[in-house]
């Protein structure tokens, strides 16, 4: 087995008296899609925020390429190649696709004493990268607000990949999307994985996870319930782990197995 791109060991995070994470471990290998599953309140968000440098863990260690590190800010995590795509906050809708794509890393062109954005390059690269992901933009100046939810996620993913992300964390990228958009995003995840990038796919939808996942980790009440490889676990078992067992079994009885 190769060295994981990123490994988190026994992460604990306390907010005052609340223990949000009580020992969570997870590793991501190159070209792997690791699904992080869990119901609302299981600690998924806290965990990925720890991974992306928003929170620093109370206990536990983070290893990037086998070396122990700590992230003081999101900038540190980004510099280490860990990119996070948040569901609602991926893009700024009022701004153009190009402006969003290059946000924070604008290519510059020197004119006399002034540094201007090199819009020629920026637009060209944006169009090319979007075409690679299978989205044909009308023009790079199009506002992101005119794109569909799935397209916005794809722009955010394309951006992360273009800027050399080694690990891509996707926070519930499919939860607000329709069927067609969801399959587009899942197809994009597959493309990204084939480039050798490690993907962490957060979801509470077992079907979406099963479609692309190589490994599955289930979080429940701030703890890891274990990691399983593809083929070792059935969707039903995953569903049960997520909901914590018994209650769902009862529910499922009354709903006739539709959940």
């Amino acid at each position, binding site marked *: 087995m190769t060295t994981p791109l990123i490994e988190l060991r026994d992460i604990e995070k306390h907010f005052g008296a609340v223990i949000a994470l009580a020992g969570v471990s997870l590793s991501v290998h190159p070209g792997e899609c690791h699904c992080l599953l869990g119901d609302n309140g299981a600690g998924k968000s806290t965990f990925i925020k720890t991974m992306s440098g928003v929170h620093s863990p109370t206990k536990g260690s983070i290893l990037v390429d086998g070396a122990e590190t700590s992230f003081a800010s*999101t*900038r540190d995590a*980004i510099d280490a190649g860990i990119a*996070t795509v*948040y569901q609602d*906050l*991926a*893009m*700024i*809708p*009022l*701004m153009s696709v190009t*402006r969003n794509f*290059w*946000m*924070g*890393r*604008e290519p*510059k062109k020197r004119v006399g004493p*002034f*540094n*201007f*954005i090199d*819009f020629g390059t920026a637009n060209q690269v944006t169009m090319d990268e979007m075409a690679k992901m*299978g*989205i*044909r933009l*009308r023009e790079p100046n199009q*506002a992101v*607000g*005119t*794109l*569909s939810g*799935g*397209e916005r996620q*794809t722009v955010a993913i394309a951006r992360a990949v273009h800027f050399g992300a080694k690990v891509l964390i996707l926070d519930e990228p*499919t*939860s*607000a*999307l*329709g*069927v*067609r*958009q*969801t399959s*587009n995003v899942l197809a994009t995840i597959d493309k990204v994985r084939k480039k050798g990038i490690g993907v962490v796919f957060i979801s509470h*939808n077992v*079907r*979406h996870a099963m479609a692309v996942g190589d490994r599955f980790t289930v979080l429940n009440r701030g703890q890891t319930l274990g990691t399983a490889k593809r083929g070792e676990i059935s969707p039903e078992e995953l569903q049960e782990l997520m909901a914590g067992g018994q209650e769902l079994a009862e529910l499922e009885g009354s709903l006739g197995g539709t959940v």
Partner: protein
Amino acid sequence: MTADKAEPALEKDERVKEISGFRKAMIRPELGSICGTILVFVFFLLVARDSGMFSAEGALNWGVVSAQFAIIAVGACLLMIAGEFDLSVGSMIGFSGIVIALMSVTWGFPMWVAIITAFVVAVGIGWLNGYLVIRTGLPSFIVTLAFLYILRGLTIFAAIATTNKTIIGGIRDRVEGDWLAALFGGKILKGLFVWLADAGLIGKFVAGSRAGQPIVDGVPMLIVWAIVLIIFAHLLLTRTQFGNWIYAAGGDAQAARYTGVPVERVKILMFMFTAFCATVFATCQVMEFGSAAADRGLLKEFEAIISVVIGGALLTGGYGSVIGAALGALIFGVVQQGLFFAGVESSLFRVFLGGILLLAVILNTYIRRIITGER
């Protein structure tokens, strides 16, 4: 999973209608203000053409007034795009003016020291405005409203306490030969205007002590400042990385932070820039009038905001145009002075302005929806 309407992303091409070149050229944030400007000029060309409004002298008259509005609108525009307001602009104008007058006339410092002090103090207050907004997380509306009162009160107090007056005159004597004052109070291109007058293109005084000199003898520095600030802010906003961050800070501060944009720094710098613009306005005005008064700049903050909104900016931030704001200022200046030339009762100024504001904003909202896909 929401298994409702499936939206084909890849086949979007065939579902999007081709947009004609003309429509594309028309759909821009400044369209409302461009239409407003055309409307206003056509109106006054019809109503007041013979009144001298469009002679060199008349144009200078409304040009100066428009430039005044433009200087503060540029600052307000960038700040509003960054997602914040500054209601203390008007009070800042009065405050900076009094600082200059107190320093130079009352306390006898050289004029350039007085001007620099005013800029340093005002930009410092701009920083404080921004810092408080960022630190407390309060709406900038509230924080700067507090400074509207604090600064106005301090200005009047300072003037009364030191000189027993609210108007401090005698600036003219202190300006003579001062290098920095010339940057705010002088005129440029005097030679050109003499030449134009000699060529018969603009009028000359026929009698009095200035007989033979052109009626318009140069471009006031106020107009130069307005043009320089407009060009600077426009390039900064549309062509630079920092401009991209201004849009981002106002468009969605949290999303901007996640991509590594220093949102706090951007916003505080914009508060400082707004204060800088207010001080430019104040300094030019003090030089022009030869005095400073504690009640100067009253209601200027709203006039700046109206210009910006006519120019197509979104009140909630993230969207707008400096060129639009400048045209908004031009509309403001032309209407205010034009009604005077047209011999219309000047109280109608506000009616006219309110009407244009409403029309421009309705048009702007419509255009913005097309551009940004807002629902």
